[in-house]
């Protein structure tokens, strides 16, 4: 009697196991499909906007703000930082070399290719990281990722790429796909005591207000980086924005250029492929 029951229950258990989908079946990582869906979501939500309009962030979300921004672009507040960046870029290091020796095309008109996946190292390389590596390779101290100098340098490099569409590549390498996927997960993961994810503001609420600010859409959100923010009375890097966004939702920020942030930048840049670089930008 007993063994029969055992056999029956065992068979039942096995049958149940066969019916349930494998617990850890990895969903295929499909950046192409993701980017398509991402762009469609925003163009559907804002049918009056052309894809390239999304790179102006909140200014395309609000007519009054747009008017002010157009006026401001005649005399943009980032001009001083841009000039400083140009000067920094063309000043040689103590060893006689300069930034142009570290980058393809002497560092001009290449910003739209960053971040990229380095297959030797197996990680995502952002423009900010590449700049500091260039400095260190030439005996110079690295710059803070969240202060004016790095912002000025990346402002100049972005400026030389103005108008060029984002052209982020994800090689068919499981590590690159994983980094991309990590970045995507970060974007949608809620964090901080306020339990916000990047998507909470930039996917669920573009064009709406958070306190007095109008929220930018997630599409094209990095195209204008680095940005002169009136709130900062100065120029700020992507690193600065990521870390301050974290603390604003009461999450302790990670270190600038930590894996999570670089992967996030990889994801956000990739899904905006095709949209023009508009940096450096100005924001409220």
């Amino acid at each position, binding site marked *: 009697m007993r063994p029969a029951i055992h056999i029956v229950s065992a068979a039942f258990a096995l049958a149940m196991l066969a019916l349930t989908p494998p617990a850890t079946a990895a969903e295929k990582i499909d950046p192409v499909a993701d980017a398509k869906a991402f762009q469609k979501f925003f163009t559907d939500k804002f049918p009056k906007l052309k894809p390239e309009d999304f790179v102006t962030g909140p200014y395309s979300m609000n007519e009054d703000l747009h008017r002010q921004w157009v*006026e*401001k672009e*005649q*005399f943009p*507040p980032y*001009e*001083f930082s841009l*000039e400083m960046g140009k000067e920094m870029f063309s000043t040689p290091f103590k060893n006689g070399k300069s930034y142009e020796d570290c980058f393809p095309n002497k560092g001009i008109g290449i910003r739209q290719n960053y971040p990229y996946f380095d297959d030797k190292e197996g990680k995502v390389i952002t423009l900010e990281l590449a700049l500091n590596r260039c400095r260190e390779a030439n005996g110079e101290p690295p710059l803070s990722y969240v202060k004016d100098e790095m912002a000025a340098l990346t402002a100049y490099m972005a400026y030389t790429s103005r108008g060029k569409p984002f052209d982020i590549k994800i090689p068919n390498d499981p590590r690159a796909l994983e980094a991309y996927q990590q970045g995507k997960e970060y974007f949608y993961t809620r964090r901080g005591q306020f339990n916000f994810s990047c998507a909470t503001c930039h996917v669920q609420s573009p064009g709406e207000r958070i306190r007095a600010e109008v929220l930018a859409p997630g599409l094209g959100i990095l195209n204008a980086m680095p940005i002169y923010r*009136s709130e900062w*009375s*100065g120029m700020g890097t992507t690193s600065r924005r990521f870390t301050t966004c974290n603390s604003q939702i009461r999450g302790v920020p990670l270190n600038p250029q930590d894996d999570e942030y670089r992967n996030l930048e990889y994801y956000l840049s990739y899904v905006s492929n095709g949209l023009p670089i508009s940096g450096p930008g100005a924001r409220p």
Partner: protein
Amino acid sequence: MASTIRVRATSSGDTTEVQALIQHPMDSGFVKDAKGEIIPAHFIQQLTFEYDGKPVFVADWGGGVSKDPYVKFAFKGGKKGDDLKVSWVDNKGATDTTTAKIV
């Protein structure tokens, strides 16, 4: 040393529109640094735009004006090719001046 003043003046009809961006820290004297010490007040006290030897716009500023101030105004008069002189003095006695052509 590069001028701290960027100015653009465009004349249309009998009005000239002027935009200027001035590089200046405009420290109010109320902000503390990372060590907790007050950053001393350092701001432009007077900004003057002159056309044909006469002031067309004078601003008396205090610490409430933000860093790298932007100014936009229009005045009656001004012809293409004429000079517009811009100058400022700050609370430390420093000055800068520049002259631009009205376009």
